[in-house]
């Protein structure tokens, strides 16, 4: 706290409101050197600030509009997808029902055949019939026909049921009920259950198995076909997320030469990496490669005695390239810096030679790590150099590292 003695108080009271009359020709000397009227927004830097502000407000408004529109679109597409899923489930259930009916029908027919033609129960007769070339080739033909008719599941079922009526025994029918399991299990079961049957019958059973397996796989085939539906391709095209907006919180430390160019005394120059910055950025992602970035960063330049604080507004372009979860990026652009104040301890000070506004050219290389489709973490070393003088006719140089987290609107 200030302690004024009498001398100080005396001078203070006497000179606080002291005024004097200038010479008569004072105004005549001032008038010729007054510069032309400043532009409506002030200096070109002042004008630039207005445009940066307008750009940020415009970007935010456009981003919010895009976000709301995308939400509507997502709701609409979700409805379509749900309906399609319901349709697929209905079709799957219908196919399963039809298959069950066919199996029941087969067993009924076989029972009838057994009662009408006892020779079918004779293993040797069945063996003979299976051994015949004609039957084997018809089997192959049938298989080929089944493959050709995969697109129509009902047709396949019909073919398969016809085949079953001709060649399946009761044992085989009981085996077929287990054929929804894996092929290995099916083959081993077939072999064990027909251990008493002739070898040629086992081979034939394998043929049956493969055919029936084809039948049981008809549902996945159908599902694959449904995903290649042109209607769904159109939906995928609609979901292309670009252009889109993403938001990035960023902060980091940096070193600079501001102290050196302000103070002639080298002991007052800046301490490396003691200065810091933090803020929020908006990215307008044009496509997977290019994006434009702007926003706001608070910068605190620390020197030995003082802290000089700036608001900064970057306008940057960024190019991205990389792999699945690691994305490299390179960026460059300009940063508009506007002085907030300077402090020595907790008291504000005026640094008379320091420019209130200056522009930096900035470049950086960094890496993003994708946590999920919407969120990324980033690390980014950067450098910048001022395009105009910052203090005492000298330019400022800065370099540092930023860490950030980015959220993309899907």
């Amino acid at each position, binding site marked *: 706290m200030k302690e004024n003695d009498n001398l100080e108080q005396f*001078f203070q009271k006497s*000179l606080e*409101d002291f*005024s004097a009359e200038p010479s008569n020709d004072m105004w005549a000397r001032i008038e010729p050197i*007054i510069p032309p009227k400043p532009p409506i927004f002030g200096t070109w830097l002042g004008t630039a600030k207005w445009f940066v502000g307008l750009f940020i407000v415009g970007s935010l408004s456009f981003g919010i509009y895009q976000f709301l529109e995308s939400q509507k679109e997502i709701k609409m597409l979700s409805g379509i997808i749900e309906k399609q899923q319901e349709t697929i489930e209905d079709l799957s259930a219908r196919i399963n029902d039809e298959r069950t009916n066919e199996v029941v029908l087969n067993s009924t027919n076989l029972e009838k055949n057994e009662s009408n033609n006892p020779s079918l129960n004779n293993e040797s007769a069945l063996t003979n019939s299976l051994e015949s070339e004609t039957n084997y080739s018809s089997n192959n033909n049938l298989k080929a026909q089944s493959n050709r008719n995969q697109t129509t599941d009902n047709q396949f079922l019909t073919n398969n049921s016809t085949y079953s009526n001709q060649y399946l025994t009761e044992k085989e029918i009981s085996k077929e009920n287990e054929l929804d399991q894996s092929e290995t299990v099916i083959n081993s079961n077939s072999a064990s259950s027909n251990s008493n049957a002739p070898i040629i019958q086992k081979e034939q059973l394998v043929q049956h198995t493969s055919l029936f397996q084809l039948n049981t796989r008809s549902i996945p085939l159908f599902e694959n076909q449904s995903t290649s539906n042109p209607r769904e391709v159109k939906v995928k095209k609609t979901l292309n997320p670009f252009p889109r907006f993403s938001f990035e919180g960023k902060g980091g430390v940096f070193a600079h030469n501001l102290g050196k160019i302000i103070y002639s005394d080298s002991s007052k120059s800046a301490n490396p990496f003691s200065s810091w910055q933090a803020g929020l950025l908006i990215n307008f992602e044009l496509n997977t490669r290019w994006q434009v970035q702007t926003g706001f960063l608070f910068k605190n330049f620390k020197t030995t005695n003082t802290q000089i604080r700036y608001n900064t507004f970057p306008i940057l372009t960024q190019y991205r390239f990389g792999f699945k979860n690691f994305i490299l990026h390179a960026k460059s652009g300009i940063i508009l810096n506007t002085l907030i104040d300077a402090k020595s301890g907790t008291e504000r000070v005026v640094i*008379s030679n320091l420019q209130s506004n200056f522009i930096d050219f900035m470049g950086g290389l960094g890496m993003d790590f994708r946590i999920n489709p919407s969120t990324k973490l980033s690390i980014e070393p950067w450098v910048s150099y001022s395009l105009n003088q910052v203090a005492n006719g000298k330019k400022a140089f800065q370099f540092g590292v930023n860490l950030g987290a980015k959220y993309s609107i899907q």
Partner: protein
Amino acid sequence: MLLGVCLRYGSNFQEAEDFLQEGFVKIYEDLYQYRPTGALGAWMRKVMVNVCLMHLKKQKQFFSTIEMDYITENHEAHDDSFESYRAEALIQMIQKLPEGYRAVFNLYVIDGYTHKEIAGILNISDVTSRPQFSRAKKMLRNMLENKLVNRDL
């Protein structure tokens, strides 16, 4: 008022008018930066102080150490009698101070800055600002005493 500020920081009337002239131009140029949160007069005064300081900083011998042999340390001034002095005379005394002392004295006593702030403004350390201020006070005290003895005011 603004000329009064310039007279305190300048070494003579002519120099003060030069400061005033440049200060007016600076005020005109920076007027768009003025925010009506504070008094316009105070803002203009601040700009004028900055202009004066900028001029003083350009001079090489701004903060050179000056031998103060003629100042006696145990000087006792009779402050009550000082009230009769006119402001113009006090300005003349301040103008006789070396530039660095003059700036520190003006900033601390009249414009109300602390030594820390002064160190920041003038790019000097705290250690430099305080002794310059006390030496300025001693010089002024001495001048006031001499004036009082000679009764030429």
